[in-house]
């Protein structure tokens, strides 16, 4: 499905993950059912691994919902747009697992770990650094997975740090690992190990996956303004999907047949998304008044009535 994911990356209705498939699928596949993950707007690969239907992912980008899927069901928090904020949520959630005695028991399926996914730019935000402080202070079972895709919109990673991002970890007293983000097997291995450390009560880890944002930051971005094609070429040659394909062919796991089948799968998924996307239902206007508070609120009820009256006039039901 990595191939399928690449296709999705090419859909371009959103912040494309093109080039980062290995980092996301590799690490995402290392999570166990009882684990929990927090991601940014770019981690479609993680959502895929957590069982989210790509069509559902589109709800957020189309503007029909603020959160695209059921966080409880997939044990995956929705796309976080505020850079770095969720690193603290992940740390707190991990403290919860600890507090609930779901760490270091050794019982299979019982011990939990949490992963926070974010980018190279996020490493500069206070919240991410405070997350390192809290995670180490309580030795919480959290893994910080930083995809260094070389860019924060138009700013190269060196604007955020002159030293490797993984090095940041030592300073806070947690282990830092740097991995080839375009090697799906390596990403899986380091994440699995960090998760095991976390679940067994050995505390947090920071992983820096070095990769590259092949596409634009988002569909409204124009990379030609700030980067030349040279790097793109360099990294295209390191295409994680291509590397995996060759590897699997050598191992005789992937043959023409299977490839063709994958291609068909991908094509039909892409097709389904194209179709379903347009069919995603708009929320009812009055739903904008729901779930501000647990109970009802007089102000909001009055405002709902006001809009209801307008809709009735316009004949909207």
């Amino acid at each position: 499905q990595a191939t399928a994911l690449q296709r999705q990356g090419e859909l371009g209705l959103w912040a494309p993950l093109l080039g980062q498939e290995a980092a996301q699928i590799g690490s995402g596949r290392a999570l166990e059912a009882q684990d929990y993950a927090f991601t940014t707007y770019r981690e479609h690969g993680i959502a895929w691994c957590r069982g989210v239907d790509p069509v559902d992912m589109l709800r957020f980008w189309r503007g029909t919902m603020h959160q695209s899927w059921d966080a409880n069901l997939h044990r995956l928090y929705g796309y976080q747009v505020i850079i770095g904020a969720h690193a603290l949520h992940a740390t707190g959630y991990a403290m919860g697992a600890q507090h609930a005695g779901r760490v270091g028991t050794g019982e299979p399926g019982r011990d939990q770990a949490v992963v926070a996914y974010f980018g190279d730019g996020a490493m500069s935000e206070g919240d991410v650094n405070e997350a390192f402080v809290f995670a180490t202070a309580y030795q919480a079972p959290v893994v910080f997975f930083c995809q260094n895709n070389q860019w924060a919109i138009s700013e190269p990673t060196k604007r955020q740090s002159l030293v490797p991002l993984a090095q940041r970890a030592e300073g806070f007293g947690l282990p830092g690992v740097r991995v080839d983000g375009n090697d799906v097997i390596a990403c899986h291995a380091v994440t699995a190990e960090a998760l095991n450390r976390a679940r067994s009560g050995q505390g947090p880890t920071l992983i820096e996956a070095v990769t590259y944002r092949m596409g634009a930051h988002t569909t409204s971005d124009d990379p030609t303004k700030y980067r030349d094609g040279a790097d793109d070429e360099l990294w295209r040659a390191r295409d994680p999907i291509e590397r995996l394909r060759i590897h699997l062919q050598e191992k005789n796991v992937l043959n023409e047949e299977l490839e063709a089948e994958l291609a068909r799968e991908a094509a039909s998924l892409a097709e389904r998304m194209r179709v379903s996307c347009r069919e995603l239902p708009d929320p009812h206007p009055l739903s904008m008044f729901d779930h501000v508070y647990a109970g009802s609120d007089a102000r909001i009820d009055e405002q709902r009535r006001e809009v209801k009256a307008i809709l009735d006039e316009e004949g909207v039901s």
Partner: protein
Amino acid sequence: MEELTIIQAVNKGLRRAMDSDPEVLLMGEDIGKLGGVFRATEGLQKDFGEDRVIDTPLAESGIVGTAIGLALYGYRPVVEIQFDGFVYPAFDQIVVQLARMRYRSAGALQLPITIRMPFGGGIGSVEHHGESPEAYFASTPGLRVVACADPTDAYWMIQQAIASDDPVIFLEPKRRYYQKGELDTTADLTSVLPMYKAKLLVEGSDCTIISYGPTVATALQAARLAAEDGVKLEVIDLRSLSPLDLETLKTSVMKTGRAIVVHEASSSGGIGGEVGQCLMQSCFYNLKAPVLRVTGYDTPYPPSRIEDHYLPDADRILDAVEKSMSY
């Protein structure tokens, strides 16, 4: 019935909340062994242990951010912000993350977090120790903002805030912490006045004084003084700054035709303007005078040696009453 101070009542309320719900956790700076700089959590770590009364690193955004994670896991964190002036580094986590989680997730996720904060001035301290940031939170949809003004409310409202499934900003009147009052702890949580209701403290027919937190005592004092001159002030403790209990306010102002809002925070953009606007909309024909405001001035909080001139006092309230009556 026992007599205790507001801070003791907060402590007692926290203890009872922790006794009755094992998911309740306390987090903050210096709340453990020290029991908080005001001793609100005195003795709680000793009795409930270090993982239910958690001393945190010195980072407010981190405290609220991790509390959000703990709440997502299923706990009910009660966060102490040591002083009003230190809440701002956590602002993004409070107004963007905490306040909107229920809405953002269309009801799938909720964050029953209470953020306790001593607020208001008048304690003769240095910068950042006498602030009234309530309007920032009261104007943020998704947050409930309440303030207590006496031991009974301190005791019950903190428990209601913790029991609430919505995030609550719980404001404690710092300079009244040692004000004593009778407390009856025998009632049960559901039978006492809900925290989202305003409370009529003194009945009167001439003018309604609306206040909350530390200035409630000031309003009561003004009412006593006015009574001596035969002026009957009606005093209301707002208690819930957001959402507002307009019904209670409306009923009073429909009767008196006059209202004065009193708070320590600056006038401009404060709670007073919102209350005044709402009363103008709901009681237009009954208002005999404009709703007036007796508040802190539109400056940052001044040096403590002159703070008494900044804070509303009974005289300023009575001047405003006179002005209101003169319409």
